[in-house]
């Protein structure tokens, strides 16, 4: 075991993947609790598809993927939020609409330019090799911003998650904090999607939150548990991925599934007992 770990850390690309992955897993878990409770789970999924489209376009134009993806996904996040709040097309349908559109446009562009190559495959299902030095620096800065904002606004986030109308009525600018949540989610998704893959990144947002809710009884403990669980699952997942040469994203999700089942079992027993 120790040998495997030492071996892993001797590869710079794996060290980078671990750093970025841990940060993204942490941010995704924290944001996830609020998103899942606000019934916005599918926003993460929608955004990752938009991110996929944006990255394909970036590849076609030969520019750095993150430079294109971050603004596009942030914009999409605001749009999705608006759509899900006050439109004739209700939230879930709006998200499905946008995510499939982005996917379709992405696939069209692929077929007209490069064709299905390894880059595209990696965007969809993730690659452990995706992180460059620059990406690591950017990830550290952005996740630091996500974490700081999250801690500073923790009490506001609780209030708008539990009861938006009450928060608004008592003078909290709920719209602003919703936008902030969408913004932070967008950034987290773009950072994580190249390692986890566009198809699987939303699992990082949904799984830790849902799993923690099986057992935990307070908001704070759900948050803390989700954060630790998310990092743990990511770590075990990447270990599996290294040992069995499986794709990173899928490995992490599989570990998350196992934890979800274990927690559900514990929750069930507790409820009965």
């Amino acid at each position, binding site marked *: 075991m120790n040998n495997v770990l030492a071996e892993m850390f001797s590869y710079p690309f794996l060290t980078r993947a671990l750093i970025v992955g841990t940060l993204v897993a942490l941010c995704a878990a924290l944001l996830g609790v609020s998103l899942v409770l*606000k019934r916005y789970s599918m926003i993460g999924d929608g955004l990752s598809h938009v991110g996929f489209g944006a990255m394909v376009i970036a590849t076609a134009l030969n520019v750095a993927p993150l430079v294109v993806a971050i603004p596009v996904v942030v914009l999409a996040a605001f749009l999705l939020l608006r759509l899900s709040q006050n439109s004739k097309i209700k939230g879930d349908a709006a998200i499905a609409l946008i995510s499939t559109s982005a996917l379709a446009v992405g696939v069209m562009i692929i077929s007209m330019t490069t064709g299905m190559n390894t880059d595209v495959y990696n965007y969809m299902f993730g690659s452990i090799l995706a992180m460059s030095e620059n990406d690591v620096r950017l990830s550290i800065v952005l996740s630091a911003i996500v974490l700081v904002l999250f801690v500073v606004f923790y009490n506001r986030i609780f209030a708008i998650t539990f009861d938006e109308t009450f928060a608004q009525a008592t003078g909290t600018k709920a719209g602003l904090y919703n936008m902030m949540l969408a913004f932070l989610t967008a950034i987290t998704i773009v950072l994580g999607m190249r390692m986890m893959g566009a198809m699987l990144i939303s699992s990082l947002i949904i799984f830790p939150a849902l799993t923690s809710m099986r057992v935990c009884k307070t908001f704070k403990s759900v948050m803390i548990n989700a954060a630790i669980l998310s990092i743990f699952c990511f770590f075990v997942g990447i270990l599996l991925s290294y040992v069995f040469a499986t794709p990173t994203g899928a490995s992490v999700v599989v570990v998350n599934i196992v934890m979800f089942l274990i927690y559900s079992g514990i929750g069930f027993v507790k409820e009965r007992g």
Partner: protein
Amino acid sequence: MSLITCKDVSLAYEGKNVISGLDFSVESGDYLCIVGENGSGKSTLIKALLRLKSPSAGVIETGEELLASEIGYLPQQTIVQKDFPASVYEVVLSGCLNRLGRRPFYGKAEKKMAQENMKHLDISDIQRECYRDLSGGQQQRVLLARALCATKKLLLLDEPVAGLDPVVTQELYQLIKKINKELGITIVMVSHDMNSIIKDASHILHLKNDNIFFGTTAEYEQTSIGEEFIGGEERE
């Protein structure tokens, strides 16, 4: 000066006028009950009083000593809350958010306030329990404690007893009466349950399209609109 004064207020809901020419005022210490059929604009009026919606005509003034953000509010429960993993204490404390200003975290004063309000509503012993595991009546008490944290003067209640059984409903009315009498907090409540509230409320606002009644409960019982709404079987 009144806590709230509505002058010739009109309210629209999805483009349609639901209330027009609404005139009433709420004085400190009042217990005002807003009644009326479904779709008569009760919830819209509550939203307007909370400044979540602006009137299409007229003005809603709040007295100098009452800031719009200092109104305690007991909303109708949402689906999101039914399975929300938060402790009673966390929910009650979140009512203090409007006292924070620019501070990010709650201080001693807010925590003490949350404890006091839990004591008022007799939920101190369940403060560590999970909100989603509570009964409907207990959940309403928690939300009431949270609303008390947000205000020292005025409480707006939107159908607080919806979905509760008769015993719990009576308990909740007792509590609201106690809050009004002992803590001196003004109550504005929307309710369908006329027979129970007519004993407690000091004023009634009856919304029925163009036929609006506003006055004391005693006056209301004398009017034809009141008689009709209270129901003949209760009156000999």
